Every structure is written in structure tokens, then in C-alpha cells.
């Protein structure tokens, strides 16, 4: 499946940028950014198997826990720091977002929007935790411990004093959402570009 969220993120990354991809998984996005955008890329990943997959792709990757923060990184040491679909799995999402905006000149955060109407509907009618393509887990084995909505994330940015440069939305991984109205109700996937004002 072509990941439209990856494509949107890719378009946000200028050619030759330095990129830190937090929770980079098996390195698919990072490898694509290197191939298409010639970035100087580095990833962070907690799963042993995923780190090995990154190494096999020739990527530079750190085996580590994002919740420990990015203390090793100097301010502004990357052009772009990406957190793709991992926000909801962090124990300390607020700290990580704050750190991203410190380490990167630009921070890109994508996450599943928990206020999308199908999810609301499922809760309302079935009265059970929603399971979908974006949220494919049962409640008892989900790694998603900090789900949030578009409104929630905007609130977080405001509280952290971060500037929202752009908001992009998708109906799903493979369905674009041009001119989407009321994204908190209609988008399954949100991509935020934030900066820390000087």
C-alpha cells in the first residue's frame, strides 16, 4: 500500500535536509527520504527487529526509548524531526513534542485522530473500543496508550508555546482529503508541522 501520509511528509522535507525520524520502525520513510530527497537521515527505534531491518537498509539508527527524551541532541541540530504515528505510543508525549521542537528547526508530527466520526460512532453505537486500519489493536494489546484528537493536539501546542505552521489531513492512509472541512470530525490522520518561535 502506498502510504499517503509518507508522501505528504516527504513533500514537507526540503532536498538535502538533515532529518531525525523518531520511532522510525523498519526505516521505510527514512529510506525513501534519503532516496528521493537526499536527506542526511538518522532514526530512533525501540524494537530490536526493526533496528536490524534499518541497519540492513544501510540506515543510521539508534536503538533506544523515545521517552528518555532527546537530551543527547543539541538545540537545532536537525533541520527536521519527524514523529510519524508514534505519538500515541509514548509514555511522555508532551516531553517528546517539546524536545522535537528544541532539537529540530521544524517538527512534523502525524497521529491518528481519535475524534473522527467513525470512531465516535463506533463508541456511541457499539459501546466498544474502536478497531480500524489506523488503530488495528484490541484494547488489551494496544501499544496506543495516549490517543488524542486534532483539538487536543492544538491545545498541547498552545500550552507548549509552539507555533503550528501547517495542518494536513488524510481520510485514511490511502485516501487524500483535499479541502477537508472540520478535520477533527472527518480526518482519520492528522499531520502537524510545528516550530518553536525564536
Amino acid at each position, binding site marked *: 500500500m502506498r502510504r499517503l501520509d509518507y508522501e505528504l511528509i516527504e513533500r514537507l522535507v526540503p532536498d538535502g535536509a538533515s532529518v531525525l525520524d523518531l520511532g522510525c520502525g523498519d526505516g521505510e520513510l527514512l529510506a525513501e527520504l534519503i532516496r528521493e530527497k537526499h536527506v542526511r537521515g538518522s532514526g530512533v527505534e525501540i524494537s530490536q527487529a526493526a533496528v536490524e531491518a534499518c*541497519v540492513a537498509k*544501510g540506515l*543510521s539508527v*539508534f536503538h533506544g526509548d523515545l521517552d528518555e527524551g532527546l537530551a543527547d541532541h543539541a538545540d537545532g541540530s536537525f533541520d527536521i524531526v519527524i514523529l510519524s504515528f508514534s505519538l500515541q505510543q509514548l509514555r511522555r508525549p508532551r516531553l517528546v513534542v517539546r524536545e522535537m521542537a528544541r532539537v529540530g528547526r521544524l517538527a512534523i508530527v502525524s497521529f491518528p485522530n481519535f475524534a473522527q466520526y467513525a470512531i465516535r460512532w463506533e463508541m456511541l453505537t457499539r459501546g466498544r473500543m474502536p478497531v480500524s486500519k489506523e488503530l488495528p489493536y484490541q484494547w488489551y494489546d494496544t501499544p496506543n496508550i495516549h490517543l488524542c484528537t486534532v483539538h487536543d493536539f492544538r491545545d498541547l501546542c498552545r500550552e507548549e508555546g509552539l507555533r503550528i505552521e501547517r495542518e494536513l489531513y488524510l481520510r485514511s492512509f490511502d485516501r487524500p482529503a483535499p479541502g477537508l472541512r472540520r478535520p477533527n470530525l472527518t480526518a482519520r490522520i492528522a499531520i502537524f508541522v510545528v516550530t518553536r518561535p525564536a
Partner: protein
Amino acid sequence: MGGDTGSAGVVRTRQVTVAEPPRRLRLECGDELGPITLAYETYGTLSEQRDNAILVCHALSGDAHVAGFHRKTDKRAGWWDMLIGPGKALDTDKYFVIGTNVLGGCNGSTGPASVDPATGRPHGTTLPMITIADMVNAQALLLDHLGIAKLLCVIGGSMGGMQVLQWTVSHPERVHLAVPLACAARQPTQAIAFNEVGRQAIMADPHWRGGDYYGRKRPTKGLAVARMVGHITYLSDEAMQEKFGRRLRDIHEYSFSFSADFEVESYLRHQGLSFTDRFDANSYLYITRAIDYFDIAKGGRSLADALRDVQARFLVMGFSSDWLHPPYQLKEIASALRATHKHVSYYEVDSHYGHDAFLLEREKMEGVIAAFLASGARTFTFSGGEG
């Protein structure tokens, strides 16, 4: 790794003489040394392009016998046989693997026990002080001898990892991939302290005689104690609990004496004593000193600054229960490399074996090492002019 992995087979240690006068090796301490004998073994075949050579650097008590067997009847293979051979992580069907005994060692390379051609007697403590950089410079002479301009990879754990770092700094143009494991960018205080206890044990042995004991009774008691102390630092609380607990040795009750009642005592005594059969006490002094002096960022430089000129791609590996070189010391190396946007990956092996994990955790190491070598080999180039 699949099931069809094999042994490097029967191998033999060879020796080469380098740094013959007047082209003696200039040591870090300012002295010159030569001629120098280096013991080495090789496994696999050097490619026609000479682009598949991997140097394996050994730890404090290691030697050139990294893989395979010396005789068909040998029960024990080389010290890193688990990773080296046909189909293994360092696949000898693809790579040309080199093991060599360090300068200052006692397993075939020039060290305190070897004869000083100037006097016809063993060097003893008249041998100049050797450093990690000196060991690496001697290895570079071995590569010259083998006709290898640039290594595909240099890999090693503990003191071997220090050599790996030193290689990338001393000879940046000769290393394409670097894999330091279970080591530090500078020997940490606690590790110096343990080494000092070991040295004091040796030097307190009346048979040490200022290092002049060759042809006489050797300081085996002191060396055995040094090894016992060292050995404890290679294990972990958990591994010792699991392996020995408080089990008694061949007895049901305490003997109410100072004999080795506990399994762990008996084990350490055995480790200490058997070590004296294969290791020279003066080499132990020299090598631990080399380790203690190791600081890749000497002179108060930042680590990132010290590693600024390295060209190699790195895979840095730490081991969760290693308390001699805890993971943070490996992360520090990786972070410093990343700070200047070098190509570096950090991988942490979850293990309860302590420092020794890098000699034991085959299954947890081989996948990522093999992947790093394979992806790295695709980007190998000889930098301008050579080869």
C-alpha cells in the same frame, strides 16, 4: 542465520616480522621498537579487489586464534568462533577475516616475554610502555604486509573495541566499517581501579621480581588473583546468582575453614589458575596499562571533536547488564558521532551475561552484524589513489 553454518576449519597461527631497523615503530611514549613480531591467523579468501578484509581485534586476554581449530582433535575453537566461519555473521565465504595478537601480548606477538634482540634476554619491564594506538599502528604494518590498503571492517569488543575506535582515528582512510562493542571512548575510573588491583596483586607476588622472572618461578599467584578480580567484572550479579548461587562444592556442610566451600570460589580459583598456564604476568601489566591510558579524546577535547575526522560507518553495540562498560558509555560514542552527522547506528543487546555477553550472545548479535556488513559492503570504495 540458517542452519548451514560451519567452522572455519583447521587453521594455523602465522608470524610476520615488521618494523625492522632502521624502520622501527615509533611508539606513543616516544621510544622506538623494532623488529616486531606479530602473530596472526586468516580465514576465508582475500578478494581480487582486496575489498573484503575484516580485522578482528581481541580483548585483554585474547589472541590471534579467533576462529576454527588448530588441530582436528581440539575441543575448543577460537575465541569468537560463534561469529566467524562459513555462513556465520562474519561469513568466511564472503569475507577475509584476520585475527592478530596485540603488541605487548604473549601469544606470538612481541611482548615483555619475547627476547630483546639487543640483549638476547626477555624484555621484561624494559619493554617500552605500549598503548592502544601502538597496537593499532603495529596492526597497520601487518595489513601492509598482507597487501590490504583499506579494511572493509574492523570489529572488536572491550579492549578490542578501543582498538576499533583508535583505528578510525589513527587511520581514518583505511577503515570503511567500524564495530566497537562493550567498550568506552576513554577507560572509565572504575575500570582503572579494578586493573590497578590486578596489577598490585601481580607486583606483590615475590616471584614477580620487578618483572625479571623468566627462566625462574613465575608470579602465578599474583596473576591468578588479578584474573579472578578481572573475571568478576566480566560477569553480572544475575549471571553469578544463576550460575552458582550459594551452592557448596562437593560438600553438604560448611567446612569451617578457608578452603573453597562455595562453587563460585572454586570457579574463580580455577579460572585464575588456568589463566596462568596461558598468560604472562608482565603482559597483563602492560596490556591493562594500555587500556587505562586509553582516551580517544586526550587533552580535554570533546568526544565529537576527537571523532571529527573519522570516515568509517559505525555500528556501536552495548550490552544491557555490562557494568564494566555500561550501555551509556557506548551511547556516548554513538551520540558524539551523530553530533557531527557521521553514519552511525547504536544497538543494545538485552543480556544478563554482563561484559562477557559479547563473547556469548551469538543469536542476539549475528543478525545485526551480518546486516551491517552486507549493507556496508555495498558502499565500499577505496578513497583516491590507493588500491
